[in-house]
């Protein structure tokens, strides 16, 4: 039926010789010159990296109404943690009558482009999580220069003010890690395994570093969050290899459930604690297989910035007085797990 694919793919030469390009003698010369022409055009009107930003000072404020807010985070789509942030932002939008648009990308270069996009849309307010502040600097400053008030959330608290943001809402990862480490030490543990689930995640790195500081000493274990089998078997392997490990700290609720299973399977006596909540974590705390969860109450990280932007736009208020607004660490353990269980189920804790 159909032709042999090779018959039209090859030979190529005669076809290309007939191509429109070959007919004019002028065209090839123009084509050969075009890179240089392009370069010349660029040289004519070009400024240095990030030079289009004139200053980082907040544009003169004028009272108005907040109609739209763009939330741009570094969470990957489908991440349970960021889903709660999204829910927070969206219900704040509903409560305050503001249009909230949520977008996210784990790749800092993509995230920067999403911020540029929000500026292009002319939103009234911007909420940005800065896991990689350096990469987002030009984009955030461009937004500020365009007169769009920015609130940073989750990560990037050190750079927030510096980039001209209105305020920061989040939890210092290092501090939260430190208090988690201290709590494990207070529970009488001596040797801790800190499980990093995402290679290249700065926040995770900080949590482990903080926990190590608070606890005294720790070994870290690298696992791949996208592969639950791998997670469980690696934690199990680590526990079997070193029987003196008596505490496992995970940085993510999904990993916590795997760690609990791994401890059970390896017959180890280690205590598991984790960052962040989900229903598995809640039931493990209920069952006593998980000691506590560090909760940074990320719902607030979605909700509060919209409120802050609203207050700023309509009343020129600021919140925090130049200091970051801390949403955590809050601890969830056996004593308070019942109260928040339902809230975890509805996606607000």
């Amino acid at each position, binding site marked *: *039926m*159909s*032709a042999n*694919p*090779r*018959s*039209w*793919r*090859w030979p*190529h*030469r005669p*076809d*290309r010789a*007939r*191509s*429109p*390009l070959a007919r004019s003698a002028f065209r*090839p010369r123009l*084509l*050969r010159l*075009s*890179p240089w022409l*392009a370069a010349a055009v*660029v040289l004519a*009107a*070009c*400024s*240095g*990296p*990030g*030079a*289009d930003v004139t200053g980082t000072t907040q544009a003169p404020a004028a009272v108005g109404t907040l109609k739209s807010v763009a939330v741009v985070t570094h969470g990957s*789509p489908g991440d349970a943690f960021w889903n709660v942030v999204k829910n927070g932002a969206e219900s704040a939008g509903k409560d305050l009558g503001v249009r909230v*648009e*949520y977008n*996210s990308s784990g790749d*800092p*270069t993509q995230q920067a*482009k*999403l911020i*540029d*996009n*929000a*500026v*292009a*849309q*002319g939103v009234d307010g911007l909420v940005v999580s800065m896991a*990689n*502040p*350096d*990469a*987002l*600097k*030009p984009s955030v400053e461009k937004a500020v220069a365009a007169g769009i008030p920015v609130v940073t959330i989750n990560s990037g608290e050190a750079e927030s003010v510096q980039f001209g943001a209105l305020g920061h809402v989040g939890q210092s990862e290092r501090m939260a890690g430190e208090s988690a480490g201290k709590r494990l030490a207070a529970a009488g543990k001596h040797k801790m395994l800190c499980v990093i689930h*995402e*290679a*290249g*995640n*700065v926040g995770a*790195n900080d949590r482990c570093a903080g926990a190590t500081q608070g606890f005294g000493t720790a070994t870290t274990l690298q696992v791949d969050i996208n592969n639950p089998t791998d997670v469980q078997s690696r934690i199990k392997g680590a526990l079997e290899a070193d029987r003196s490990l008596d505490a496992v700290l995970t940085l993510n609720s999904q990993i916590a459930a795997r760690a609990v299973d791994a401890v059970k399977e390896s017959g180890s006596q280690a205590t598991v604690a984790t960052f962040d909540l989900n229903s598995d974590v809640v039931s493990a705390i209920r069952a006593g297989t998980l000691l506590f969860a560090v909760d940074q109450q990320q719902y607030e990280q979605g909700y509060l910035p919209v409120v802050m932007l609203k207050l700023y736009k309509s009343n020129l208020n600021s919140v925090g007085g130049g200091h970051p607004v801390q949403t955590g660490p809050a601890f969830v353990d056996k004593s308070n797990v019942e109260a928040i269980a339902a809230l975890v189920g509805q996606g607000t804790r």
Partner: protein
Amino acid sequence: MTATTTTEPAAATPPDRLAILNRLVARPEVGALLGAVVVFVFFTIVTTKFLKPLGISTWLDDASTLGIMAVAVALLMIGGEFDLSTGVMTASTALITGLLAVHAGWNIWLGLAVSLLFALTVGALNGWVVMRTGLPSFIVTLGTFLALQGLNLGVTRWATGTVQVSGVRSAGGYQSAGWVFASTTKIGNATIQASVVWWIVVTVIAAIVLVRTRFGNWIFAVGGALPTARAVGVPATRTKILLFMTTAFAGWIVGACNLLRFAGVQANQGVGLEFQYIIAAVIGGCLLTGGFGSVVGAAIGALIFGMARQGIVLAGWNSDWFMLFLGVLLFSAVLVNNAFKKRAERVRR
């Protein structure tokens, strides 16, 4: 296949116009161009900001780094090979430059030279191993992909204690290097990133090389029919090694653009992007089997990607559905391509 289907239009159209139409339809990039027009018109109608200067600069920006890679990947695919290490290569080169500039205190240009050397070496090695062992390039470059991913994380953490390199802005030579790789050009109200210029220049050069030079012929030859090419004296090994070096070189350009623009790089950056490059090339009319395709098409494929990705955000759609839309879009683009290719086969016979 019977000739009945082709006789109808021939009767309706004058023979001269038909010849032009047929030749046009036989070009690999026509499907992509059509797709690009559809996407462009669609978002121009659906959103108010898509065609504004800020909107245009946003989606051009998104398409540019993807496009630089897609063009090189298209050349390689026409040459009948795959490269899965391209995404990670953009991070590797940026990490090498960043580490040397920030942690060893070198001038950025020196760092760029070293990372370029590294990229070309890895590319050459990829090509050499593929040709020497006769293993599919899919397997060989998968190995390179994994190895580089491990190196990126391992070396970064070993050298910096964290998982990202930042602080490039204070390194020597940042101004001049930033001017080349990360400056911005104002055209009217639109701010065009340097990567867009690189994209255009790379596309033009690659298109000329492919269509107008002997080396271009060799690429089609080794991709279309390797034994035949060898029999008529095409230096197949050299050609393919050079092609692998080209994709690595493109990875270096993108790495440099990203590093200097975002003033830092994360160890896990670029993972998974290699598929986007291949997809852009395929949308642009490259065959997965080699021997057929177009550089301009690949650049248009990247443009479609950028327009769709940012257009969805500009339209204010719920980002939950983004991947679905992208999938449908890619699928329809490939279907259109396929239809054109079938028609092209018929025309040429």
